[in-house]
């Protein structure tokens, strides 16, 4: 057993620490009266299918890359052909796009592979839904979110496909491009 002096001193030291802490300001953020700042690349909001801000056309070309890469296999996309777009990304569109948010693990792989920046995560503090159906993001819901992004572009997460590909560009930070396996 430690000596009496050690016991007394150690105990008083610990108690002094808690006493000092008692007079500090609390760390609690009183949500929802005060909402915390959401960082630029936040991934825990909802999803949106974006529109081209210049022409107002849907960006999704129905290529299904997001469906193939999702580890949780929650995305289902079907393709349809339509009129060629003004911004030149082609004449294919997505017919149905369903993202089951219940099983999403926010890995951002679907964002990373999208060739047209069509799918993006939003930064809004996503409100809870009252039924499971609310978590099944159909194309209408995703496009509604996309329309909201047209009005308030700051709501979109900064981690778009372009940004993620820019970071993982094999030539980044090098004076000239290199051939890599």
């Amino acid at each position, binding site marked *: 057993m430690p000596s009496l002096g050690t016991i007394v001193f150690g105990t008083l*030291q610990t108690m002094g620490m808690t006493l000092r802490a008692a007079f500090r300001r609390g760390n609690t953020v009183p949500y929802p009266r005060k909402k915390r700042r959401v960082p630029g690349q936040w991934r825990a909001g909802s999803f949106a299918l974006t529109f081209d801000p210049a022409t107002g056309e849907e960006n999704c070309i129905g290529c299904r890359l997001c469906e193939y890469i999702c580890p949780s296999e929650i995305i289902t996309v079907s393709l349809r052909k339509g009129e060629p777009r003004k911004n030149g990304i082609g004449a294919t569109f997505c017919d149905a796009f369903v993202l089951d948010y219940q099983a999403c693990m926010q890995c951002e792989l679907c964002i990373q592979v999208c060739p047209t920046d069509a799918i993006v995560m939003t930064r809004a503090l996503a409100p809870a839904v009252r039924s499971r159906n609310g978590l099944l993001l159909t194309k209408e819901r995703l496009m509604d979110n996309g329309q909201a992004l047209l009005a308030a572009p700051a709501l979109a997460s900064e981690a778009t496909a372009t940004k993620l590909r820019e970071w993982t560009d094999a030539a980044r930070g090098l004076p000239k491009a290199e051939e890599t396996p």
Partner: protein
Amino acid sequence: MSAAPVEIVEREFGELALNMGPQHPSTHGVLRLVLHLSGETVIKAIPVIGYLHRGVEKLSEHLAYDQLAPVYERDDYLAPTANSNAFVLAVEQLGSIAVPRRAQWLRAFVAEWQRVSSHLVWLGTLGLDLGGALGGGTTLYMYCFRERERILDFLEEFTGTRFHTNTNLVGGARYDLDAAMAARSDALAASIKTALPELWAMSGGNPIFQERTRGVGVISADLALGVGVTGPTLRASGVSYDVRKAASYDAYAELPFQVVTRTAGDAEARFQVRFDELAESLKLVRTIVAGLPTGPIFARKPLKNPKATKLPKGEAYAAVESPRGELGFHIVSDGSAKPYRLKINAPSFKNLQIVPHLLPGGLVADVVAILGSLDPVMGDVDR
């Protein structure tokens, strides 16, 4: 098929067979310990695991390599990037994929921050175990989690999410550190360092804590090596084995750091090892930021269809030093885009094997102290 059998726990006369069941505040997850008690003394302890088994190894046979990295972060959920780091190292070994230097340093950067965060959770929950949810342990827990919240906020700024950051890709890293983020990391490391004396005073410097952990759960070096424990548990018994030095991966061959070892082998030694590792990792984070090489962070073509990434036939094993010990992935490939068999060498599973050797002879109160000092994470044990 007959009905589920009723489990009968065989016991001697005068023994109390107690189920420190899967639902318990101190078993670090869903661990079931069948304890045979005589009064307060433990006679026999049988750990029963599997309550968190999610079939991750079987799932791996179904998904492609590019899809799999975020899945493993849910195994050892307190240090997620350690899992995905080991996985991508194994895949890169199998496919002979070169990783740029800057990516290796960034992987080490996130890994060390998560080591700090994991050790803070360990310390806080050790306080909860020893002190109780209605007492001084909770105070230590709140202080540790206050520091950890700052780390998670930083990771949120850096990657977009707090825990399961998915920063490791096969072939590199995903998020790059710019000057502002690097400065923020340095400031955070400095501020957490100033909180360490406070945490020490509440735990290691507290005589009651010392009483509860000194001489409790002594693991000799022979027992440790015989059972196969790894990580801080092994280093506290005098065996200086750290995967970061023994089989260097990522940037660790170039980074200067100490392998913390103690010889006592009791719970207090394990506490000291982890606490000193916390301080080492804080120093290491600043060293990494200061010496980060320039260059790209991903050396392959941009990610497209994951089924296009086929690996040659063969097998590979790669291990990292997670906060719990040696975490290894053994992949057997049959030449396709999906693993043929993937086996995870989980440190918490190995560390838990020592429980039947350590618990007998101690009191019930020692059970929680020993479990806390072993730091098992059931997601890692059961996968």
